[in-house]
């Protein structure tokens, strides 16, 4: 009897998997794949909290985007991720009188406040490691692929968490590939240390995606992530 159950079980598995079938990621021309975790689709911030708390995210939601409300703090996804592909769209405000880090500053972090890709209005600059698209304070983007302020821009990022052995010793750096507006700006680049604080300990487990409130009216929309 037990043998029969096993045989039926196996038959059912083979039938269900179809032997060769895979669940399609796309049914037609849609852009968000079906295996994506949608983080923000323009409706609400139900997937987010104020970082380090269980309070609701304080950013405002209107017209399909969310905008930093200065002083309300960074926002973090409720879910945690390690290796992942992240799609994010952002829009920096026009601040023609501002310079450097005061010009529409924000940032996208992996694994909590650990590995940052900078968001800033760096349009037209020779990019340094504090400019938009930089692995903040570590590696400038290969090229400046900025659109002008007030245009929606995209980051498509593939992040690999650092690896550790049983004793907690790091065996592989974090790595990241980034397309900015479809242009390759980091190609499997190593991230040797956390970006905001190079001496901080690196996380050995997953962490949230974090968006920075740096006091500027930066907007985000259409955010999704695929755990890898």
């Amino acid at each position, binding site marked *: 009897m037990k043998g029969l159950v096993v045989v039926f079980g196996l038959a059912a598995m083979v039938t269900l998997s179809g032997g*060769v*079938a*895979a669940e*399609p*990621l*796309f*049914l*037609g*021309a849609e*852009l968000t*794949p079906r*295996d994506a975790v949608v983080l923000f689709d323009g409706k609400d911030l139900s997937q987010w909290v104020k970082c380090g708390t269980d309070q609701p995210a304080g950013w405002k939601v209107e017209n399909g985007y969310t905008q930093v409300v200065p002083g309300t703090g960074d926002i973090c996804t409720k879910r945690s991720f390690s290796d992942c*592909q992240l*799609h994010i769209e952002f829009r920096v405000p026009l601040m023609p009188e501002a310079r450097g880090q005061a010009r529409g500053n924000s940032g996208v972090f992996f694994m909590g406040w650990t590995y940052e890709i900078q968001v800033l209005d760096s*349009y*037209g*600059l*020779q*990019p340094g490691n504090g400019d938009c698209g930089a692995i903040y304070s570590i590696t400038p983007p*290969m*090229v*400046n*692929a*900025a*659109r*002008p302020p007030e*245009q*929606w821009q995209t980051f*498509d990022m*593939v992040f690999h968490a650092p690896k550790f052995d049983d004793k907690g010793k790091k065996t592989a750096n974090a790595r990241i*590939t980034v*397309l900015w*507006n*479809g*242009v*390759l700006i980091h*190609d*499997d680049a190593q991230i040797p240390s956390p970006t905001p604080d190079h001496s901080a300990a690196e996380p050995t487990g997953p962490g949230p995606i974090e968006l920075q409130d740096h006091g500027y009216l930066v907007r985000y929309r259409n955010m999704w992530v*695929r755990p*890898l």
Partner: protein
Amino acid sequence: MKTVLALLLILLSSSLGAAPLFTGNEARPADALVLFDGKGLTEWTYLDGKPANWRLEGDYMEVRGGNIRTKREFGDCQLHVEFRLPSMPNATGQAKANSGVYLQGRYEVQVLDSYGLQSQSNDCGGIYGVAAPLVNACRPPEQWQAYDIFFHAPRFEAGKQISKARMSVLQNGIWIQDNVEIPGETIASAGGDLASPGPILLQDHGNPIRYRNVWIRDLTAEKH
């Protein structure tokens, strides 16, 4: 004097900034070399050097009369290419809307209707015979699809190979090849000296595959 001039140049260039890749919301960066935008096949030939004569209509070209290759040759590059497969519901396997995109004429990313299949290395998005895609990111036939490919040529020093070719690929925005090392030329490579640049090659495998919006960015000057 020479030093002063050099300093002046450095000062000038740093104050001038970088030429923007985008001036608004256009999709293609300004540093891209357009290989095909629907207007003609001036960048392409058949493998024997005769002018490419794939069928042109609207913004696309369709397979006709043999493989085509770019006149220019490339090393490290970012390639964007869009393709559309016909619906061939009665065909299976390698007979179902087969074509391919070759980097340097030597390393093939397979083009095929593999919709709904558990992808193997000879399915769509596979580095042919080398690596299956991480996931099957196909759209159904008759939908336009896109590859964004980041290619690193093998490196040679004093005639000795010191690194292999590598490739990452997004299909329809999905990460399907993660910096994969390619041990050697894939099947049906156009050959040539592996240390030399090579063309982008699009395969005529006998099926009416369409291509459009093909552009490339030279990455040979970038740090890796």
